[in-house]
């Protein structure tokens, strides 16, 4: 299962964090800093899957942003790697039409894709349908 999803910049600042297993607030910053340190130290030609403590990290870099997903050992790493890309493509599909920065909207999109640590929807149109409907309601 998916334990968490993080988006961090190269300076190690968290841009988005979502935990699918409860982690105390006070422990999150340290975990995130450690995870990020681990990924930032990797080179371009190295594996995108890192063993971290008793689970694994799957990370993917997009220009100045790192997306890191913590997964249990039973997860198919490459499928999570591509899930991250699917997520990025969904964001691109949405934000290319609606030019507004919103942390809440990214969360709402993530809500449609991953629930309880499992992948629940990967069809881009279906992922975005509830949010676009909400946008219309607000207009």
């Amino acid at each position, binding site marked *: 299962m998916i334990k968490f999803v993080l*988006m961090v*910049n190269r*300076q190690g*600042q*968290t*841009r*988005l*964090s*979502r935990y699918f297993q409860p982690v105390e*607030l006070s422990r*999150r*910053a340290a975990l995130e800093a450690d995870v990020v340190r681990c990924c930032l130290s990797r080179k371009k*030609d*190295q*594996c995108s*899957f890192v*063993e971290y*403590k*008793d689970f694994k990290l799957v990370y993917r870099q*997009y*220009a*100045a*942003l790192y997306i890191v997903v913590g997964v249990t050992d039973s997860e*198919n*790493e490459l*499928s999570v*790697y*591509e*899930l991250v890309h*699917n997520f*990025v493509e969904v*964001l*691109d599909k949405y*934000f*290319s039409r609606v*030019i*507004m*920065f*919103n*942390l*809440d909207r*990214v969360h*709402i999109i993530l*809500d449609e894709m991953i*629930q*309880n640590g*499992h*992948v*629940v*929807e*990967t*069809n*881009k*149109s279906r992922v975005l*349908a*509830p949010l676009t*409907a*909400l*946008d219309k*309601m607000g207009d």
Partner: protein
Amino acid sequence: MSDVVEKTLTALPGLLSLDSLPGSNKLSSSSKLGNLIRGITELTSKHEEEKLIQRELTSIKEQVSSPNTSMRQMKELMVRAIYCEMLGYEASFSYIHAIKLAQQGTALEKRVGYLAVSLFLNESHELLLLLVNTVLKDLQSTNLIEVCMALTVVSQMFPKDMIPAILPLVEEKLNHPKEIIRRKAVLALYKFYLIAPNQVQHIHNKFRKALCDKDPGVMTASLHIYLQLIEENPEGYKDLTTSFVTILKQVVGGKLPMDFNYHSVPAPWLQIQLLRILCLLGKNDQSTSEIMYEVLDESLRRAEINHNITYAILFECVKCIYTIHPKSELLEKAAKCIGNFVLSPKINLKYLGLKALTYVVQQDPKLALQHQMTIIECLDHPDLIIKRETLELLFRITNAQNVTVIVDKMLEFLRINKDDYTTIDLVGKVAELAEKYPLIHVFLSFGGPLLPENGKKIVKYTSHITTLLYMLK
């Protein structure tokens, strides 16, 4: 690089980090959240960050308590509170207002209220009870979007004791004409099953109906429940094997609508889910396995496209073939597949190949032998992750002839490794091997130079090995 990816790469930092994109200033200047994030980004010390966030929290606290704050403003305040909590600063004063926002807000306001609740609270939080009435109301709303929101939040967290109050409403939604409602209702039931399995025992036949739903999304949602049920009791679901095989056949054969494709591959994550289910059902069961051979063969053949996601499906396919009752033609094809992975210059594939080899090597030791040279190369690979995975593989193919070499390689790795968990794991493996193949020189190696940080744990294991060796003498 494709157009989409190019555009995404340049747009993404601007969307989320507000770093250096022209025009991003324009977008964020009217947003208080934007200002806050920009403020944080520019700081360099933790102390300064604390000060800024505390100021922010004080301001938010004042505004949420004011009777003049509109729901629109409340939405904005909640997002800022979410941001502060994300950085690790508690904003528990805002929790009750998140619930209020979900209750009193409309459209996006309501949605953000629900979002904030799902981020702030947890299953056992006492405030969660206050959400139940709002959820019950929204579930009965004529506005389908509100029904969706309620179902979404229920799938994320719900107080176990209140399930009986909501169950009939959710069950009713299973028959809704709109697929999104049916799908979300199934996911809510999945959640209920996770937190209180005995509460949903009586509706197994409704899961079945969802599995046969004409909409692929609803069917996919039911697979989550089935995977769980089958993991717990494979025997009870063998009769569904044909259904799962048929579904996989249809997916692989491209029968789903185009928007289920990801880079021309039909519903890859769905394929992976189905393969996992089939794997569980076919294990140690010849007759059930025989039902699957054809579709597994088809999956192997169809996966021609050179894309990571295809390889991910192949990996799952190979795992399945090696777990269920063996069929030689399939095993041959799967072995070839693993070979291609291991020999691939792409490092992620090499990793997957090694992982697959580790999984299958007990059934097929010849395969590892076939790829000996590559495995030896991987041992000296600059990437520690590859090295580590290779050692994992080697551990499983140790015999009296190669054990000394393998243990030496493990000790060599231990000297450069910095991660505690890996150290403990590897030392344990060395100890196991030392017990199996009495190795005096291992004991001597342990007495030798080791990294100081690993010292304590190694000493603990050293005495363990000493005891073992003493007992074996």
